[in-house]
């Protein structure tokens, strides 16, 4: 589904990604772990097309298409979703309005029928029930006054509604207590199916207790220096990144 070949990217003139190679197939969950500054968030922003992140070399193929040619909203239309590390607040815009706009934009891109207000409310209720969330987030403005846990719940809900092909979770576990962590992980697991794939970016192994990966990659100094199965995560937790950072330098 996703093929990253020798990806180099700079931010503010500084090269952060120095030749990333990564392949993700449908039905898989990949974890990317690494120390601060290794380029984890940069990778997620480059994949989703954020301004200010310049690709200097390499290519990214998504379902055979050249992903780097597409605008952010087009990538979303193609089924790419990013659960932000720090979701931004949008005052005055109710969560339901925001989500309905998003869903209809994506549907329009795919030539599908858009949903009206009533249909959308029905869909939303279904998803919140499926995830075990309460309704109270929905009427409030997007992320305004939300606690860290509420923001991550909101990201999970959006993911459920938009039903992406490839979901990138950028340090989903930052700022979460244990219970919130479990809730968010459960929602990810509920959405997992053979047709979609997940790229989970995280510092800590504990998230991977709940979202069990198929492959784990170590990102250090802008390169993937080692890959392995889920046991690699335990090893990193025990020994730290030192061995791998040395290899990358």
């Amino acid at each position: 589904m996703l093929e990253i070949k020798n990806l180099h990217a700079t931010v503010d003139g500084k090269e952060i990604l120095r030749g990333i190679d990564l392949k993700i197939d449908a039905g898989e969950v990949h974890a990317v772990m690494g120390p601060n500054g290794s380029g984890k968030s940069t990778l997620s922003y480059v994949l989703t097309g954020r301004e200010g992140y310049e690709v200097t070399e390499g290519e990214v193929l998504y379902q055979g298409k050249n992903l780097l040619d597409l605008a952010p909203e087009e990538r979303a239309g193609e089924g790419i979703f990013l659960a932000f590390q720090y979701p931004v607040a949008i005052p005055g815009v109710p969560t339901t309005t925001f989500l309905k706009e998003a869903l209809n934009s994506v549907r329009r891109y795919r030539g599908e029928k858009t949903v009206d207000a009533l249909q959308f409310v029905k869909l939303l209720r279904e998803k919140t029930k499926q995830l075990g969330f309460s309704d109270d987030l929905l009427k409030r403005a997007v992320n305004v006054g939300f606690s860290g846990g509420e923001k991550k719940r909101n990201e999970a809900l959006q993911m459920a509604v938009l039903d992406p092909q490839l979901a990138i979770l950028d340090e989903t576990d930052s700022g979460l207590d244990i219970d919130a962590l479990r809730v968010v992980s459960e929602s990810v697991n509920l959405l997992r199916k053979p047709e979609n794939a997940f790229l989970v970016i995280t510092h800590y192994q504990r998230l991977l207790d709940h979202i069990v990966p198929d492959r784990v990659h170590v990102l250090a100094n802008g390169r993937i220096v080692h890959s392995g199965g889920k046991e690699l995560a335990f090893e990193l937790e025990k020994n730290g990144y030192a061995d791998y950072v040395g290899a990358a330098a």
Partner: protein
Amino acid sequence: MAASVETVDRLRELESQKYRYGFITDIEADTAPKGLSEDIVRFISAKKAEPAWLLDWRLKAYRRWLEMPEPDWARVKFPPLDYQDAYYYSAPKSPEDRPKSLDEVDPKLLETYEKLGIPLREQEQLAGVAVDAVFDSVSVATTFKKNLEAVGVIFCPISEAVQNHPELVRKYLGSVVPAGDNKHACLNSAVFTDGSFVYIPKGVRCPMELSTYFRINAQNTGQFERTLIVADEGSYVSYLEGCTAPMRDENQLHAAVVELVALDDAEIKYSTVQNWYPGDENGVGGIYNFVTKRGACRGRNSKISWTQVETGSAITWKYPSCILQGDNSVGEFYSIAITNNCQQADTGTKMIHLGKNTRSRIVAKGISAGRSQSTYRGLVRMGAKADGARNHTQCDSLLVGDRCGAHTVPYIESKNRGAIVEHEATTSRISEDQLFYCRQRGMSEEDAVALVVNGFCREVLQQLPMEFAVEAQKLVGISLEGSVG
């Protein structure tokens, strides 16, 4: 009928005046010749068969206007107005001159109607398509009129009110905005040709929202509209002015005057959505919207609230205001002013607190995009006797892009030690983070801007009557088209 006998008498009176004052212009003509003169003022008055007192009022205003200097203190720039280069009276278009169907109407205009979700029948009305007299519009208006008559509400063109309710008009016309108030109101007083008159009797809650759409006699786009609304004791009315559809006019200067009078325990809610032609991307050819709107809360416990969404015009210059005379009276001003491309706006409000325990609330949202300039100018004045008076002002500016300007000019004058005035202001830009968040969820950059801006304006949009609110949201999005990238 009594009315036509009176009219004939008046015409005879005017005929004689004609010779007395050397009135030259041929009254039979459909359109006054170009230019402005005392003659033209008389012509307008004669065409409308007005009584002597009104002609007199107009002439006094005209003569005063000649002496008044042009105001130039606002933050708007425009070349000097050529008052002689306009027609001050033109007859409604005959059915032959109008488009026969929407096929004959400018497709760009139709595109905008579509975007705003305006139903087909309304589109025809707006585009001036000759509608079959037997058709809907007449019967809709007739039912409407019947409901109003049943409760004693008067809602008619102001020229009709001059004929049928002269005592009311004479009592209140010019009592809130006197002719000498400012140069443009003065001109309006001399040459106004159209506008609404509304009177709500004691204790009556007007059963429906009054909208200029239902005034079937409104065939001329009102360049000098004069509106007068009087709410008698204990009454309530909600009035909607304008529409979201873009309106064009050959005449560049639009200087309307709106006067509102609320007596004891009465309430007037006045909503405006204005989308006059703003000119091309370089600001050429747009309309100048120089309006004087003022509400007098004469009675105790009276309330007047202004809600406006201003997105059009090359230049918008207006300060809907409230004079809070009656004790416990309340004035409110909710505004969204959007400027894009080369538009300019200098708009705000004046809240004059005279009575005790009077309250005012101001929520002004200004959005600038393109190379436009938007200024909020507000005055809160607490009179010496305004014990316990209180004002809260919140004005927020949002900048889209980096070539536009937003300015705030608050005036606070207080002569009462106990009066409270609170002012909050914010200036912000739409953040990259917000736009990226929306785009990552599938929205285009323009849709993202529209969404964020609608969120910014939400508090004001919620004040609009339902029909307007939905259209206004769409209008906000459309006004910002082309402002990004």
